[in-house]
């Protein structure tokens, strides 16, 4: 017989600080979607409920073309041998409009380009859904490493 206890409250002092500053940031939201997104973040870090973070990301993707791009949470699971536990990251960046225009050309031509790739259909999704591809000038990226690019959210529920 195995006993598993789910113990909430890990990292509470850090998350209390985090929520304090997130609540301050919420006052400066550029729009209603961002404000609602931060509301979900606050609830997620308060309760530890992952569904709330998924909800924050559903709102995050609805916020099209923000000038300030941010994301925060336990996101990338590369470091877990089981690939289910994720590392904390939080970043703030300014969108580079000119470079993003160039990247968007790649997205526009994707359906054609995908046909020329050297691997077969088995390695691609059935339907290509256009991502919002932006180039960011990063102001701060708090994590163990700073990536060259990221593809988020990772949730299949949101993709």
């Amino acid at each position: 017989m195995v006993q598993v206890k789910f113990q909430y409250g890990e990292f509470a002092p850090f998350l209390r600080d985090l929520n304090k500053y997130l609540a301050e940031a919420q006052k400066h939201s550029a729009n209603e979607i961002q404000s609602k997104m931060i509301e979900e973040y606050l609830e997620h870090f308060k309760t530890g409920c992952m569904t709330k973070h998924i909800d924050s990301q559903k709102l995050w993707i609805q916020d099209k073309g923000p000038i300030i791009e941010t994301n925060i949470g336990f996101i990338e699971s590369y470091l877990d041998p089981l690939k289910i536990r994720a590392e904390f990251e939080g970043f703030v960046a300014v969108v580079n409009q000119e470079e993003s225009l160039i990247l968007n050309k790649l997205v526009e031509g994707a359906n054609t380009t995908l046909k020329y790739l050297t691997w077969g259909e088995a390695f691609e999704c059935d339907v290509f859904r256009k991502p919002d591809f932006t180039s960011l000038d990063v102001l701060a990226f708090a994590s163990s490493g700073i990536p060259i690019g990221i593809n988020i959210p990772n949730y299949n529920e949101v993709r």
Partner: protein
Amino acid sequence: MATPYWSTHQADFEKIYSRIGKLIFNAETPYAHIDFSDKHGTSGYYSKSVTSADAELVKELTISKGIKSENNRLVKQGDKEFIVKIASIDAKEEII
């Protein structure tokens, strides 16, 4: 070339570094490899006694409870007791 913080925080740094410095640069088994202890690796997400089989078992139980694991880590106490430590401000405990 040292920053001003070296003079104000050197003692703090030395206190922390003396505990973790050797581990950061250790290339011996199991420290050079991210994996479960039974696979001769180390992980910050699992306490040392958690085996890959343990982790799979807890994963199945956790999924069956509808809980996603991005914000937790797994600790084993004794032989058959596991604690899933979840990041949150609010504290509470649930046993399954």
